């Protein structure tokens, strides 16, 4: 898979809810080469802010060559991106990372917080692969306001958990899975570390295959700097020291492959 450095052109941007933005970019090559679970690095135009901001792909349109990024404003870079308007250009590099390896097994698609967006393209890919709707169980965990939920409903059965109980099960995604006794043979997931840790334990207990998409501070984003490693069960093929690179060997890992 080739990687490209481009100037993406903003096609649209809207605010989904407090602090969450939905940005669509026209790319030259990136969309055509992208798959669910991969990410792009966006760059600030401010010279004081050097490092790329890795943002997962919420949507990929290979024909129109557009990508959709749904992200939370957490710092300088994302604040800047939230001000982009149609026609503006933004430097990006991608597609990066491995993405999800999908199968036709009965799936639990689990997203928590700002880990929800990449699961949308993942759910879509599963649905488009011809899987039955009832074999795609989608579980979304929010703090309070639900974003992207209606879009997920196109691709499978959606179960929601909210921390404040305002929608669905009060609690986290594990609470929702338990409450509805959701079943599956494989878990695809992205979300905060505690959620991934709980899913890993749950999958092990249930004898399920489980894939986790991790997050870590990155510098190069392409596997060269070794900034964003995670502890792995097996030796990694870069340094042979049980440190896999989140940006290049991941961000998606088999749950048993990594220590959380």
């Amino acid at each position, binding site marked *: 898979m080739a990687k490209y*450095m481009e100037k993406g052109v903003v096609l649209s941007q809207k605010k989904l809810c407090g602090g969450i933005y939905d940005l669509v970019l026209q790319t030259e090559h990136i969309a055509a080469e992208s798959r669910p679970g991969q990410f792009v690095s966006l760059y600030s135009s401010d010279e004081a802010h050097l*490092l790329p901001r890795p943002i997962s792909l919420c949507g990929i349109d290979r024909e129109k060559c557009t990508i959709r990024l749904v992200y939370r404003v957490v710092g300088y870079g994302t604040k800047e991106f939230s001000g982009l308007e149609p026609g503006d250009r933004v430097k990006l590099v991608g597609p990066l990372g491995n993405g999800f390896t999908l199968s036709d097994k009965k799936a639990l698609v689990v997203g928590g917080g700002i880990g929800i967006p990449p699961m949308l393209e993942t759910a879509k890919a599963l649905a488009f692969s011809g899987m039955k709707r009832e074999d795609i169980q989608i579980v979304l965990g929010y703090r309070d306001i639900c974003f992207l939920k209606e879009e997920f409903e196109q691709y499978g059965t959606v179960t929601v958990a909210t921390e404040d109980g305002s929608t669905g099960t009060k609690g986290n995604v594990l609470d929702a899975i338990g409450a509805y006794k959701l079943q599956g043979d494989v878990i695809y997931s992205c979300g905060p570390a505690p959620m991934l840790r709980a899913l890993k334990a749950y999958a092990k207990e249930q004898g399920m295959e489980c894939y986790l998409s991790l997050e870590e501070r990155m510098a190069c984003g392409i596997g060269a*700097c*070794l900034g964003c*490693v995670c502890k792995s069960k097996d030796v990694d093929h870069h*340094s042979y020291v049980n440190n896999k690179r989140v940006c290049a060997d991941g961000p998606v890992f088999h749950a048993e492959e990594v220590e959380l």
Partner: protein
Amino acid sequence: MNTSVNLCGVELKNPVLECSGTFGSGMEYSEFVDLNRLGGVVTKGVASVPWPGNPVPRIAETPSGMLNAIGLQNPGIDVFCSRDIPFLKQFDTKIIVNVCGKSAEEYIQVVDRLAEEPVDLLEINISCPNVKEGGIAFGQDPKSAEAITRAVKDHAKQPVIMKLSPNVTDITAMAKAAEAGGADMISLINTITGMKIDVNRKTFALANKTGGLSGPCIRPVAVRMVYQAAHAVNIPVIGMGGITCSEDALEFILAGASAVAVGTANFSNPRATLDVIEGIEEYMRRCGVKDIHELIGAVK
């Protein structure tokens, strides 16, 4: 127009390298950069055995810069020789291996192992602030620097570059110590030790507490030290520290650097090395400079 420089018998097609640790062994960046275009590739530091490095977070952004505390994670010299050197040999560029160790013996093991390898230059890292033993301990005391230089030189089959730390009171004393120990060249600056605190989480931004500061923020310190070092010794100086574009690189060359290296800029612009090479050529055309040597040390 001549952009080639000869570093102790090694002819670089141009004076542009990248900084150890920012470019791996070039594999990942070869998707963005034709490695044949570079004066040389400086590898990530390699030790006698694999090193796991530090816990994460290893990276933090700072104003016009970044902190890193990778801790010299590397696969050790055996994997390096069987994988990274053959990869680099495919390209028409010079191979500069950065060597790290926790003791003189460890440095020497790596240097000995590289003796028969098709490597052009050795860069000895005595200035990494992110490992507890070795590294910077050799790089902050002139006597230790001279001793480790001499020990390495006794074994090295390739010309030796000593990479100096900026975390010292007097960089000229360190440069002279390396020269006295027999160094063929010096390179500087490595990162400056820094710290960032996350005031909302009330903890250190890096798991290692401190890290090495790099990027344009440190360029004025780097230019000053390269200028001072170049005036203190008679061996070639390789300049680095916050180079993002050809103007930055030219600052170092005018200050006395015979070659330069691009580091953190690779992260913000994977094509940064090529931009620097092309920019230097354009500057030389615009200013009527026929040979890059007219520029080396031209600002006194």
